[in-house]
């Protein structure tokens, strides 16, 4: 199968069956690299299993990660107002 069709099939499999829309698939010879973020370690394994079941001829390199959920360490202060796009220097004052 052409790489482009394979990658499209992987993307649609993960989205339409698994609800994972943010995963990149990259072909390197006989290896399929999966990259992106999912919300749990279980999902990392689930995504790999789905792809392995559908494409048993491929070796899968699973590089999916799970974003952290720590408390915010800082806040962003929003003071003043940013300049509108296309504003002149006179508009900004």
């Amino acid at each position, binding site marked *: 199968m052409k790489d482009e069709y394979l990658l499209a099939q992987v993307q649609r499999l993960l989205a339409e069956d698994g*609800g994972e829309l943010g995963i990149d698939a990259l072909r390197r010879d006989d290896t399929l690299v999966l990259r992106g973020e999912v*919300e749990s370690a279980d*999902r990392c394994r689930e995504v790999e299993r789905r792809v392995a079941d559908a494409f048993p001829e491929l070796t899968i390199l699973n590089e999916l990660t799970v*974003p952290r959920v720590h408390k915010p360490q800082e806040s*962003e202060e929003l003071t003043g107002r940013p300049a509108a796009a296309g504003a002149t220097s006179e508009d900004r004052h």
Partner: protein
Amino acid sequence: MGRVRVGAVGDVHLDRDVVGRFRPALDDVAEHADILLLAGDLTRHGTPEEAECVAAEFGGLDVPVVAVLGNHDYHGDRVTEVTGILQAAGLTVLEGEGTVVETQNGNLGVAGAKGFGGGFAGRCATAFGEPEMKDFVRHTEFSASLLTKALESLECDVRVALTHYSPVPDTLQGEPLEIYPFLGSYLLAEAIDAVPTQLAIHGHAHAGVERGVTPGGVRVRNVAHPVIRQAYSVFVIDQTC
């Protein structure tokens, strides 16, 4: 009037495997924020079972929680049930509506709508051709009109717009250009710029960046969890400026 603290996160995609991950960081949320906004994609497939997970994770917090739904929350075609479960847990779910929350530093108004795609000025979809294409664009137009009406309805000290889809391309940098039309629409920014608004919050763009600004000068923040990489972000809006 003083400083209103807005906590926000989107795209938490809860299911049973995620329940409990966020909660330790949420139990003292009142120390950091006056309100917590959820910018859609609260579930994975939009099922009632997943909504129960959201209710368990974000219900019963010591600050008001205000949410919009995202495309994932619509996938199961059970929006009414999903919304009902979240509301029963004390969450306020907005779709073309506004709500005002009293804080010790002033009244914060939140107008919420899911929004939709279509792309950005100069490269956007238009309501022309096949009925499917016209339906696509008109759904975004409708959502944007709801957002404007919701913003206009708010009587408050600080006005915040909450959507799932992005109103600007700024916060999509890092996403493939080819999918920008599926990530947001300039019509949402136009809706936000039509009413004095201090902050626009959205999610949906997992590979995007945090910060942007509408053509009218309203700050935009992408709070998709894979972008902010923490339980929630906090924005302090200083009304004295």
